[in-house]
Structure formats: C-alpha cells, structure tokens
C-alpha cells in the first residue's frame, strides 16, 4: 500500500522536475501530463481500496469501489488533455516564430519584438 503511494509520489516528482528544471517547452508539457497522470492514478488507486467490484449496480453486486473519484477523474483527464493541446499549439507557434524550443531563448528573442 505504502509502496504504491510512494511510487506515485515519485512519478509526480519526476513530472514536476521536468516542469521546473527542463528548459525545453515540450518537455515541460510532458511534465504537466505526467503530474496529471500521477494525480489521476492516486485518486483511482485510493478510491478502489474500499471495495472489490466495479461500480455497475447489478443485482448481485454488493461491495463496489468508490465511484466518485472515478467520475471526477473523467473530468480531470479531459481537462488535462485540453490544456496540453492548447499548450502544444502555442508552442508550435512559438517555434515557428523563434526557431527554438528553449524557454529562455524564446523569451529573449521575443523581448526585442515591439
């Protein structure tokens, strides 16, 4: 149990490291996706501890897992994909404008633009 949580924590930290330390903007978007995936994993993993059956309410089902985190995570997954789609479109535009993926280089080159 604890090991699983620690693994998810490590996944989260890997993603966060990519966001803060990597200068490559696409890598930053990868990091954003990874931390989102980590949170989704955490919600589902912990929500499934209290039951043993999928939350489809038939007659013979007695002990379902918590369906609330699942419904929340459906929304969270979609939002994260939307965010990364927009971020990618923006980064393609930035690449076309500056010819670089490095965030500092982009910032520096665009600061000369009026």
């Amino acid at each position, binding site marked *: 149990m604890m*090991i*699983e949580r620690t*693994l*998810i924590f*490590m*996944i989260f930290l*890997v*993603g966060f*490291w*990519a966001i803060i330390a*990597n200068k*490559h903007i*696409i*890598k930053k978007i*990868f*990091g954003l*996706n*990874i931390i989102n*995936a980590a949170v*989704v*994993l955490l919600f*589902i*993993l912990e*929500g*499934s501890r209290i*039951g*043993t*059956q*999928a*939350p*489809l309410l038939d007659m013979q089902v007695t002990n*379902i*897992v918590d369906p609330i985190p*699942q*419904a929340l*995570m*459906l929304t969270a*997954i*979609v939002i994260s*994909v939307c965010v*990364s*789609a927009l971020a*990618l*479109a923006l*980064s*393609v535009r930035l*690449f*076309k404008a500056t010819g*670089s*993926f*490095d965030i500092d280089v982009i910032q520096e080159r665009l600061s000369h633009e009026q």
Partner: protein
Amino acid sequence: MNLILLVLILALSIFVIASKDLLHSVIALSGISMLSALLFVLLKAPDVAITEAAVGAGISTVIFVWAIRHTRRREKEES
C-alpha cells in the same frame, strides 16, 4: 500486479524526461497512458480506463505527434 505496472510507469516517465528524441518521448507517454488504462481496469474503474485509453493514449498522442512533425524532432544539444 499493481506494483509492476506502477514501476513500469515510473520507468517510462523517467524515459520521457530523459530521452533526447521527442518522438520516443511521445510514444513513451502514450505507453504511460496505456499502462494506466490497464491499471484502471484492474482497479475496477472501467469508465476511466476507456477514457484514458481513448483520450490519453489516442487524442493526445495524435496532437503531440502533429506538433513534433511540424517542428523539430530532436532536442538540440547545447552548443
């Protein structure tokens, strides 16, 4: 089983960050999504699994590949 999948996801996420080839990173990211979808099935969350497989592994990979196709595939070495 959960543990194995989580270790694989961790390994893949490190690969995503470390790889110099962006296309490899994208494929690894889509691998993360597929493995999470598998994990969600094991954790009795079929709805989330379908969404993750369709959206995480499908759509977002398409967008990433499109973006890389329109820009540059390899991360430039510092010079």
